[in-house]
Structures are given as structure tokens and as C-alpha cells.
């Protein structure tokens, strides 16, 4: 049986893992390579790392960090943040990423999804979608939630699938960073409308939240703070999910 994936997410600046609430008040949580190694050894099913300050200066160090991480883990690695064109995708895959996640660039230029999936295969193209409720509608937001686009969330999710995305990383900006649980309503709407895997992101604070995330039909559950702060070990989450009947890799 296919297992629900537990995916720690590293928000990275250069080579440090950081955490900010709603992308503000940034705090350093630790060294990215050491944390990646720890998660790989302690039962993470996949790792996700995002360059959250992809400036020209920081980028070189970030790519080196991707290389170092790829060398010390043997689970799949998804890398995103600051991916703007095909050459960025190639650079990250060459640095050792197994999948690359595209966000704002896909919104601005949807053709990029098709080009990237034709070039590298759908299996390594993840489209990260940030969603937010605005005037009664679920909209796609970009620039870390600062810009609300005209795109309707569900239409966009269907569109990225038709363009060749292999997976959707779905973050609700309404629940991200506040640890009150995943946005079940938003996630269910997305998973019901696409047939590619969806990773739920944004809002985990308790063990039950992981279970509720599983109930949205998301096959990957992504979390950051609860792992970085050592509130829960990955094993603890998996044992809990297993006790609720959720298939996990123990």
C-alpha cells in the first residue's frame, strides 16, 4: 500500500534554516545540511528545501547547500524558491535535487511548466501553489503571499496538471505559520479536482493536524516548525498516524 509521506520543510537562506511567521520575523533554526541529515536518518520520507531569499548573492551559497545536502541524504529532495526559468531548474537538478518546485514563475509564465516537464519529465516538476481567500473566493497568491493574483485557485490547480506538473505543493496562506492545522477545506477542494499527488502545507501544530491532513486525500504532509522546534520527532508523528490506521513507512 502506498504510504502517506511525512515531509519536513527547510526554509533556507544561504545555508541556514530559518522560520518566520507569515514570512515575517525571520529566526535562524539551524544549519541546513545538519538538519537535512538528521531528518533523513530519523525517518523523513522526503525533504523539501526552499530558498526564501533567492537574491543573486545568496543563490550561489544556496546551490552549494543543495549539493551538500544531496550528498548526505538518500531520500528524495525537492528544491524550490527563486526558480524563474528553465536554466534555474537545470541548475538545481544538476546540484542533486530530485524534484524542483516552481511557484511565481509558473503563475507569470505557465508555459514554463510544460517546457520543464517535457525537458526533464513530469515526475520532477512540482508546482507550488499558495492560496488565500479574498473577497469570498480562493485565489492564487505570489511573492510569499504579498500579491493576490486574479487566478482562481481550483482552475489554476487543474491547469498546472494539464500543463504537465507531476505534483502540487499546496500551501494555504490563511493557515501557514500559525499552527492551527492545515486548511482542510482548501486542500479537499484541490485534491478533488486533480489526479496528481498533492502535498499539504501550512499550519501543522499538533499530531491530530497530521491526521486531518491525511483525510484531505493529500498524499504528502509537509511541516516545518513542529519538527525544527523538536516538538515532535518524525517517528512520533508516524506512530500516531499508524495508530489511526493511516499507512506510513515505519
Amino acid at each position, binding site marked *: *500500500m*502506498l*504510504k*502517506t*509521506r511525512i515531509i519536513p520543510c527547510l526554509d533556507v537562506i544561504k545555508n541556514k534554516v530559518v522560520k518566520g511567521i507569515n514570512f515575517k520575523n525571520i529566526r535562524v533554526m539551524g544549519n541546513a545540511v545538519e538538519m537535512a541529515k538528521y531528518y*533523513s536518518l530519523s525517518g523523513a*520520507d522526503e525533504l523539501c528545501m526552499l530558498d526564501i531569499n533567492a537574491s543573486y548573492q545568496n543563490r550561489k551559497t544556496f546551490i552549494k547547500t543543495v549539493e551538500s545536502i*544531496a*550528498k548526505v541524504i*538518500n*531520500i*528524495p529532495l525537492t528544491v524550490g524558491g527563486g526558480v524563474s526559468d528553465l536554466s534555474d531548474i537545470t541548475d538545481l*537538478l*544538476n546540484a*542533486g*535535487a*530530485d524534484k524542483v518546485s516552481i511557484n511565481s514563475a509558473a503563475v507569470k509564465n505557465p508555459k514554463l511548466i510544460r517546457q520543464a516537464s517535457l525537458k*526533464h*519529465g*513530469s*515526475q*520532477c516538476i512540482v508546482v507550488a501553489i499558495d492560496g488565500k481567500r479574498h473577497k469570498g473566493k480562493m485565489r492564487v497568491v505570489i511573492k510569499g503571499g504579498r500579491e493576490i493574483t486574479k487566478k482562481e485557485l481550483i482552475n489554476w490547480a487543474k491547469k498546472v496538471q494539464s500543463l504537465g506538473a*507531476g*505534483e502540487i505543493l499546496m500551501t494555504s496562506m490563511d493557515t501557514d505559520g500559525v499552527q492551527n492545522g492545515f486548511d482542510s477545506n482548501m486542500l479537499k477542494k484541490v485534491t478533488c479536482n486533480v*489526479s*496528481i*499527488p498533492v502535498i499539504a502545507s501550512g499550519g501543522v501544530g499538533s499530531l491530530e493536524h497530521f491526521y486531518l491532513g491525511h483525510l484531505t486525500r493529500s*498524499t*504528502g504532509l509537509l511541516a516545518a516548525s513542529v519538527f525544527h522546534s523538536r516538538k515532535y520527532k518524525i517517528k512520533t508523528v508516524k506512530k500516531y498516524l499508524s495508530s489511526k490506521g493511516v499507512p506510513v*513507512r515505519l
Partner: protein
Amino acid sequence: MKKKVIGLIDGQSGNIGSINKAIKDIIKGRPYRLKIIKGYFNYSSFDKIILPGQGAYATLMSNLKKLKIIKPLKEYLENNSSYLGICVGMQILSDWGYEDKITRGLGVISGDIKKFRNKKLIIPHMGWNTINLNNDDTIITNSFDKKDFYFVHSYIFQNIRKSNVLAFTRYGQKFPSIVKKGNIYGVQFHPEKSHKHGLNLIKNYILKS
């Protein structure tokens, strides 16, 4: 003592970084040598060949053709030499692939590569799933039975002889997750991404065959 030569084919179909590193770690301090194959090669100068692959069947076949790898690889396989195909590297052992367009494969293990039948499934089949052994041997030992490995694919080996299926996995249906014919092995999952069990499998392949 003469060193055994392992060939790792770079079919320009996804990253060979992880598998390259895994092999290097395993052969460190042992009488083996790793050579990356990027074009025509003399098939008799390799003791083992590993072909990892991602993406589409047709793409890998056409890359191998362009790189002039098909002919020596076929000669190598016809001699029942030791081979490990990973993901699409396994799939091209079949007669035909039905991804994108119908493509002729290497025809080593009879069968076709077709999409999962169940339309309600989440596709690709992505994540960790269990392998169930039909048989075991020196490489695929009993210790791998019921263990989880990392999969990412939308197409599966169909119309294959039961005797060529060493292990199967369930996702909407049963499908072959390890195929074998003589010294030729194919795994649908990615052992290089499958943590300790995956590394043990690669280790067994290199050291025990």
C-alpha cells in the same frame, strides 16, 4: 587481483548523482572500478552495468540511440551479463513502451510498458510502497520482503511471464516491482532514494553477483 568494472550508463534521463555516489561508497576499498558510460562501449570490458532512468520510455530509448549505446548494450545483455535497470532503465528491457508514442524496447524480458489501468488512481504513483517477494535469490534476499521503497512512475510492466516477476507491489492493482531474467535485474522503484533498504539492495547487486 583484477578489479571488476562497473559501468554506470548516463542516458541523460535524470540525475545519476545519487546512484553514482551510492556505488562509490560501496566500492570504496574494494576491488571494483566505476566507469561512466556516455557513448559506444566495448561490452566485454564490463562486469556489471547499471542503468538508472527517469522520465519517458521513448526519450530514454532515443537518447541511448543517439549516444550509440543500444547496440553494445544489446550485445552485453544477450550474453546474459549482469545488469541492473532502475525505473525506466528497467522498463526498456520490455518489448514495447506505450508512453507518449509506441516505442520498441530492448526486448530482453517479454512484455509491454503500459499505464496503470485504474482511472481513479492518483498518478504518478509517487512515494513509498511495499514490495512482496515471489522468490528470493542471492541479491534479492528475504530481508527485502515487505519492505518499503520509493516509487515514482505512471507506467508498469504488463503481459510479463510470471517467472520473470521476482517481486510485486500493489497500487490499484498488482504490478511487477522487481523483474529478473538470468543475471538481468530490473527494479521499478529507486533504490538510490530508498534509504537503507535501497542501499542494501545496490550493495547486494554489486558485491554478491
